[in-house]
């Protein structure tokens, strides 16, 4: 079983559209959407969810109001400002000796799950359950099974969910005897993207000819080198700035990384997305032909 990971460093370079086209060209295969922060692949692949499971990661503190004496120790101890006061409209300092103390609750979006309040609450009034920070799914699509996930807002994407999605996709491929797992990688250069590329058979980096994408390309190149991963580059919307496209081609040559193709700006890409299809399935277009060309080169690299 081989793993092809498509990454881009910067968002908005057309990575997911290219993955959808590859899914159509490579079917039947197993697809994994590791872009769990802003997963979009399902919008084209139209998955039928077969299994779903909660994703748990770390813990979160919760005050049991009936046990809380409002002493405020947790508020003073919390370094993340996660203890909020509420219900203090009547509290007027300086009135009779027993001014009501504000009630306290924990803002789940600010709580980093350190457990300090739990440890030091004099009443033992703070629970520390596991935190459910998302959900993951195994689905059927017209190209084969898709493993995907949804991270709740404000949750930390530590790479653990990415690892889980990738592992489940690998298992499915083994079970069904599929030779390729196609992975829509995470953006950026942090933990999630590292979790999506380590040990992959080949990494395709999608970039575009802009100053900022060029800058991010170098960072992801460093990353693939650092982890000793075979990688190649594809320039999307290459005609937007032919000069920077040429610079990128030179840069790839200097780095010893193959340039596997250029895709010109083509409204057909958006048109296919609007129709809920991959570019390959939509009406014939220049972009579809160019993506087909890149796919052919990628297959050579993967030796499949």
């Amino acid at each position: 079983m081989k793993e092809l990971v498509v990454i881009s460093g910067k968002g908005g370079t057309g990575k997911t559209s290219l993955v959808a086209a590859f899914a159509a060209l490579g079917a039947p295969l197993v697809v994994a959407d590791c872009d769990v922060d802003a997963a979009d692949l399902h919008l084209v692949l139209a998955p039928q969810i077969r299994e779903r499971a909660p994703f748990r990661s770390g813990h979160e503190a919760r005050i049991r109001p009936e046990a809380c004496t409002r002493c405020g120790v947790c508020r003073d101890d919390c370094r993340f400002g996660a203890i909020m006061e509420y219900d203090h409209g009547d509290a007027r300092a300086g009135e009779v000796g027993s001014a009501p103390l504000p009630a306290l609750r924990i803002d789940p979006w600010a709580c980093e799950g350190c457990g300090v309040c739990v440890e030091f609450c004099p009443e033992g009034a703070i629970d520390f359950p596991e935190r459910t920070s998302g959900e993951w799914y195994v689905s059927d699509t017209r190209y084969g099974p898709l493993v995907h996930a949804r991270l709740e807002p404000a949750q930390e994407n530590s790479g653990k969910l990415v690892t889980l999605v990738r592992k489940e996709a690998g298992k499915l491929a083994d079970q069904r005897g599929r030779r390729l797992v196609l992975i829509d990688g995470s953006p950026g250069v942090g933990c999630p993207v590292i979790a999506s590329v380590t040990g992959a058979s080949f990494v395709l980096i999608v970039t575009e000819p802009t100053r900022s994408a060029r800058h991010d390309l170098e960072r992801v190149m460093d990353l693939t080198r650092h982890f000793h991963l075979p990688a190649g580059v594809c320039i999307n919307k290459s005609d937007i700035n032919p000069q920077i496209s040429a610079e990128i081609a030179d840069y790839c040559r200097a780095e010893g990384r193959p340039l596997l193709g250029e895709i010109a700006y083509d409204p057909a890409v958006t048109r296919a997305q609007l129709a809920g299809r991959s570019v390959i399935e939509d009406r014939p277009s220049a972009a579809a032909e160019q993506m087909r060309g890149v796919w052919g080169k990628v297959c050579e690299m993967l030796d499949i």
Partner: protein
Amino acid sequence: MKILVTAAGDSLESPVDPRFGRAAHYILIDSRTGEHEVVDNPASTAPQGAGIGAAQRVAELGAEYVLTGHCGPKAFRTLTAAGIKVVVGVEGTVGEAYQRFLEGGLSAAEEADVEGHW
């Protein structure tokens, strides 16, 4: 002496799990008796620092050697600090790995063999 092998399953026939921190199971073998026990790896689902948590667990279990596929720098540092020797690049089944180790075919690593986040 106790030898711990990272395992993808729960028997001596299971393949060695190439990951240390996020390995599914640990199989702890006592070289005096030849007996083994299967231990869960509670750190395998830690949100971060799985290798460190796992190394701490391994130290508690009293293992002197760890046989695994890869070991990142943080886990390596923790294991070494606890006086545990690490053998990386181990393949095949758990039983085979243990036999090779007994025959002297495996030697401890000087440093971590992969970057973190693995």
